[in-house]
């Protein structure tokens, strides 16, 4: 890695010309967007990610053996939901050798697993394979954390 280079996609390093006015404009924009969403629409249904329509069209349920581990994934409606915080498992139910692998969704549409919180993957299957890579010989717990 070359020292001092900014990460891809984050623009040049150095002082930024973000003015207070720009920030205020952004704040107002977000506030207006939030204001026009009826409160009822936010209650009683799963959060729907803007990229879900695209993902739904291309990504199906999966089942495979990867590095000797049995991976399964099915679009879920939150059967693995961690209800105490309203977290919805990225709306996928994924298992490795029958044990639940909790997935999280990132705002860019990618997926993280509870085994690896820092590397995100474009699909639930890729996230499950990444988790297997990190698991080595270990078994997931019978019940997810």
């Amino acid at each position, binding site marked *: 890695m070359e020292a001092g280079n900014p990460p891809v996609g984050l623009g040049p390093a150095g002082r930024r010309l973000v003015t207070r006015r720009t*920030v205020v404009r952004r704040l107002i924009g977000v*506030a207006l967007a939030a204001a026009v969403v009826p409160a009822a629409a*936010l209650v009683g249904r799963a959060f729907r990610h803007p990229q879900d329509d695209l993902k739904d069209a291309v990504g199906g349920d999966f089942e495979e053996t990867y590095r000797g581990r049995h991976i399964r994934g099915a679009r879920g409606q939150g059967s693995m939901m961690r209800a105490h915080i309203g977290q*919805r498992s990225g709306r996928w139910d994924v298992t490795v050798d029958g044990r639940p692998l909790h997935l999280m969704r990132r705002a860019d549409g990618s997926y993280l697993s509870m085994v690896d919180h820092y590397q995100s993957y474009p699909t639930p299957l890729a996230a499950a394979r990444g988790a297997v890579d990190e698991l080595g010989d270990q078994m997931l717990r019978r019940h997810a954390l």
Partner: protein
Amino acid sequence: MYTRQNQSSLTAAQKKRFVSALLAVKRKGQYDEFVRMHVAFYVGDGDGGQRVAHMAPTFLPWHRQFLLEFEGALQRVDPGVSVPYWDWTVDRSPTSSLWGEGFLGGNGRRSDRRVMTGPFAYGSGHWPIKEGVTEGEFLTRDFGRPHDPIELPTKDELAWAMRDSLYDSAPWNSTSSHGFRNKLEGWTSGVGNSKFRNHNQVHRWVGGHMLGAGSVNDPVFWFNHAFVDLLWSRWHRKYPDSAPYLPAGGTAAGRVVTLDEPMPPWKVKPSSMIEHGHLYRYA
């Protein structure tokens, strides 16, 4: 008022006291409560619900309060200890004294990543993992990910975050391209090793438990976060004219906590977390 020291400056006696207090907190069952709390509050910004601990502006105040809670538990055992910080731009070696036999112990072995030395090795009998992602009861580390090597963040990479005089920016999550918070937390749209920065990159470098939901199981978690906390203080001093926390007001439909809103689970406001000089200082 007490002082948090650089871990490299601790005497052998100070290390011993710190480790003893830590093991006592573990014995009492309190340590695993901190592990569970961190698991519960790790929420993805693409899932529903409010996020406070990660991928959110409150990444810094949330972990500041989390550190204070943990430090309180340590100090109820021994009022003379505090959480040391690890400057990973300086102490970058797997053989640093940080990983010594009398402190945090060393790397995991290659076969199963099990930590074999120091007070937190499974064989010591003091540190069984109760709240892990896997069934394994032993602490694991995988320094530098040997199968696909990665370094700790450099001074230049940290400087890239410190150069941003804006605290945070919309959309206030892991995709915010402007702002100190996301650059220090370390989410980028980069590929390969450049996708990890600063705080996140440290979790990745240590590996094993530090990589996943149960990262608090590795005591180095606190050393990393004490340094991150110190960096927030330094940033605040460097940019006295910048808002020390954003967003200041109503935004993001309740999914992030603004300056004067109560932050779960402690109900403290970010505005009350900005100054810490009355509680502790960094040496």
